């Protein structure tokens, strides 16, 4: 028999957990409700015409940011996990990415402005913006990719090698595909940082109200648009409508990505 006091204690903890869950759901619901109820009022012809280029800018920023950062993060992690011999070096990289992941984005913005915009002469552009945000999410990508790849049982790799596969082939045909779901969640987490970024982008991408037609162009993303609209008190309803579009976009990208990786039935 469980003593009555212990039972009460367990009941109390249980209650706390439920309260916490309700709180989280409640806050989330409130945010959604607030954004959608206010956002929907801002949707009209003018808004749609204004937003389409901004949405397209955002998608381009996402694309180029990941184009720069994902391959680098992946190769860095493959090196760390598979090839790096010295334990201290692996530890150092892990320590550094831990610190870098916590550096405020405005600092990346400053560095990006000094380095890419000025020194490399890229100007306020998609190029400079994507490189800066790519740098910003690199540490979190590296950490999450490393966890994802280390979670793949080493027996998979042994099996591939025992069949005559090279280390590289084992990595690309067995280890990475086995980690695809967690690699993707890492990317989705980073996506949140990319679409939400403002501080670093103001200094590198700029906030031009224009469609980005080449990598050298400046332009604003949905978040930057919201920032400008809200800050300059131009239109709060339009800012809310932008927020709604942003939420929907992130939601859609997540859905598509999940569909693409599937459940691993067909390798």
């Amino acid at each position, binding site marked *: 028999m469980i003593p009555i006091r212990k039972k009460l204690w367990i009941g109390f903890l249980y209650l706390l957990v439920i309260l916490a869950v309700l709180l989280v759901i409640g806050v989330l619901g409130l945010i959604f409700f607030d954004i959608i109820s206010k956002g929907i009022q801002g949707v009209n012809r003018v808004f749609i015409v204004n937003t389409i280029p901004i949405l397209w800018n955002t998608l381009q920023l996402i694309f180029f940011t990941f184009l720069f950062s994902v391959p680098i993060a992946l190769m860095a992690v493959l090196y760390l996990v598979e090839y790096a011999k010295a334990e201290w070096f692996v530890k150092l990289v892990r320590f550094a990415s831990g610190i870098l992941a916590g550096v405020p984005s405005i600092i990346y913005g400053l560095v990006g402005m000094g380095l890419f915009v000025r020194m490399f002469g890229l100007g306020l552009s998609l190029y400079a913006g994507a490189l800066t945000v790519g740098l910003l999410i690199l540490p979190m990508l590296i950490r999450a990719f490393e966890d994802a790849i280390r979670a793949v049982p080493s*027996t998979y790799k042994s099996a591939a090698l025992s069949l005559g596969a090279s280390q590289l082939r084992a990595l690309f*045909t067995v280890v990475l595909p086995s980690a695809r779901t967690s690699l993707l969640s890492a990317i989705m987490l980073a996506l949140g940082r990319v679409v939400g970024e403002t501080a670093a982008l103001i200094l590198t991408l700029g906030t031009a109200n224009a469609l980005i037609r080449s990598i050298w162009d400046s332009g604003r993303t949905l978040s930057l648009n919201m920032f400008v609209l809200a800050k300059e008190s131009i239109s709060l309803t339009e800012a809310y409508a932008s927020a709604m579009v942003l939420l929907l976009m992130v939601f859609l990208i997540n859905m598509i990505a999940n569909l693409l990786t599937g459940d691993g039935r067909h*390798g």
Partner: protein
Amino acid sequence: MADIVATNFNLFYGDFQALKDINMTLKERQLTAFIGPSGCGKSTFLRSINRMNDLIENVKITGSLIMGDLNIIETNKLSVLRKRVGMVFQKPNPFSMSIYNNVAYGPRTHGIRQRAVLDELVEKSLRSAALWDELKDNLHKSALSLSGGQQQRLCIARSLAVEPDVLLLDEPTSALDPVSTAKIEELLEEIKTEHTIVMVTHNMQQAARISDRVAFFLSGELIEMGDTYQIFSQPQKEKTSDYITGRFG
């Protein structure tokens, strides 16, 4: 196909000597069982035969290990060696891909691309592993949806698909139920007409049932090796008889 011959074979993990002066011949088309208490070096020796010890740092080897014209210790064509010497692990480890792609993985690794050839190899290998009839209609299902016993037979099929001369098995049935174990023993007896098989086992009955020869290891040394019947009925060394009668280990 050829015998595998170890001469004065030593293996060190750093300063620790795991195998001491091993001299033995693994005869072609026979099933040799490695027995001995935990930590005596059975897996270490098994892994030396397809160079899986290369993955472990600070391994040092002296002596020789030769299969026909192939110097196992010195070859730098690991892919060729491992095509000739396949391995099945203790825990079933199919890839998270379809059954078909699991079996076709090895042949594809060695450059086979034509669908018809792959189809044929997959069928032949699954038949050898006594899985074809069970699975032929579900080749595109995930291998992870199979039972443990089926997974292990799939791993055997996967190894057979590269058409190796030698198959190394490290306690292949220790994680399986008796029925699955019996199926694997049966299929091993069938394929040994075409393959040299080396199997580590902790199960004396299993060794007695299916092996042709038995090698008894103790603390990194090969104590005794001989025909299965001889080892179990009249072992030459006292340590061997102590071990097989269950006095230690």
